[in-house]
C-alpha cells in the first residue's frame, strides 16, 4: 500500500489534510489550525480553505477510484456554502456520480459535528488522463 496521494501534494500538506482510506472510500480530515481562519470576529474558517478541502478530497477520490499516470485536472467546480465553518476540524467525502472515458462528475460534502449538517458542498467535473497505467 503506497502512501495516500494527499501526503505528497504540497497544498494538501499546507492545509494539514489527513487521509483515512477504508477500502474504496476516502475520508479527508482538515484538523483545525489558526491559519485556516478567514473571519477572526465570528470566528469562522475561510470559505476558501473549506473549498480547497472539498476539491482535494474530490481529486483524491477520483485518483483512488480511477488510477492514472497524471492527476485528474479540474474543469470546473461549484461550491455552496451552507453554514459558517466553526474553528474545529472539518471532514470531507466525495462520491463519483459518473466517470466516462475523459470526464468525471463528482459531488463532495464537508461537515464538522454531523455529516447530516454539511457546512459546504461541491459539484465538480474533472478531466481524466486517457493514458492507463
Amino acid at each position, binding site marked *: 500500500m503506497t502512501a495516500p496521494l494527499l501526503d505528497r501534494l504540497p497544498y494538501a500538506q499546507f492545509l494539514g489534510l489527513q487521509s483515512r482510506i477504508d477500502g474504496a472510500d476516502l475520508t479527508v480530515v482538515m484538523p483545525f489550525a489558526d491559519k485556516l481562519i*478567514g473571519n477572526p*470576529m*465570528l470566528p469562522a474558517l475561510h470559505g*476558501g480553505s473549506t*473549498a480547497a478541502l472539498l476539491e482535494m478530497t474530490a481529486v483524491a477520490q477520483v485518483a483512488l477510484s480511477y488510477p492514472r499516470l497524471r*492527476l485528474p485536472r479540474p474543469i470546473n467546480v461549484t*461550491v455552496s456554502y451552507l453554514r459558517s465553518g466553526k474553528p474545529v476540524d472539518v471532514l470531507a467525502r466525495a462520491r463519483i456520480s459518473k466517470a466516462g472515458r475523459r470526464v468525471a462528475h463528482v459531488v463532495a460534502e464537508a461537515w464538522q459535528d454531523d455529516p447530516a449538517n454539511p457546512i459546504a458542498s461541491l459539484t465538480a467535473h474533472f478531466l481524466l488522463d486517457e493514458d492507463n497505467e
Partner: protein
Amino acid sequence: MSDPFLTQMLPQLAGGAAHTHALGFAYEGLEGDRVRIRVPWRADLVGDPDTGVLAGGLVTTLLDHVGGLAVWVALKGFQPIATLDLRVDYMRAAAPGADLLAEARCYRLTRHIAFVRAWAFEVSPDDPVAASQAAYVVNSDGGRKAGANLRGKPEATA
C-alpha cells in the same frame, strides 16, 4: 482618494486575516469598481508537484476572496458578508513558478445579495487561468453577535 476605507481598510481586508496572511495574499489596487489582489508563487502552495502549478483550491480561495473585496467596494465600506456559492472554471494550467493575480467586479448589488465575477491570471485578465461567478449574502450576520455561530441551533434557518 483619501477615503480611509479604500486606502487603509481594503488593503488590510485583502491579506489581514490569518488564512489570507498565511497564503501571502497582497492588495494590488483598485481601478473603478475592479479590485485586484496577488498571491506570490510559493512551493508549498503547489497542487501537483510534477507540474509546479499553484493548486486549484488556492485559485478558488483567491477568487472567493477577491470577490468579497469587490462586494465591499460596491458597498463603499465594510459589512459582514458571506459567500453563498462560487463557480470556478479552470481554463488552463497556471504558468509554473508564476505569481497569480485576481481581479473582481461586483456587477449587481441588491439589498441582500451581491453578484460578482472574477478572473485569475498571470499577466492580463484577457488571458485567464480561471474565471468565477459568485453570489454573496450581504449583512450576513443579520445583527448576530460575535460567536453566534459557535452556539447550537437556531442557525438552521440561515
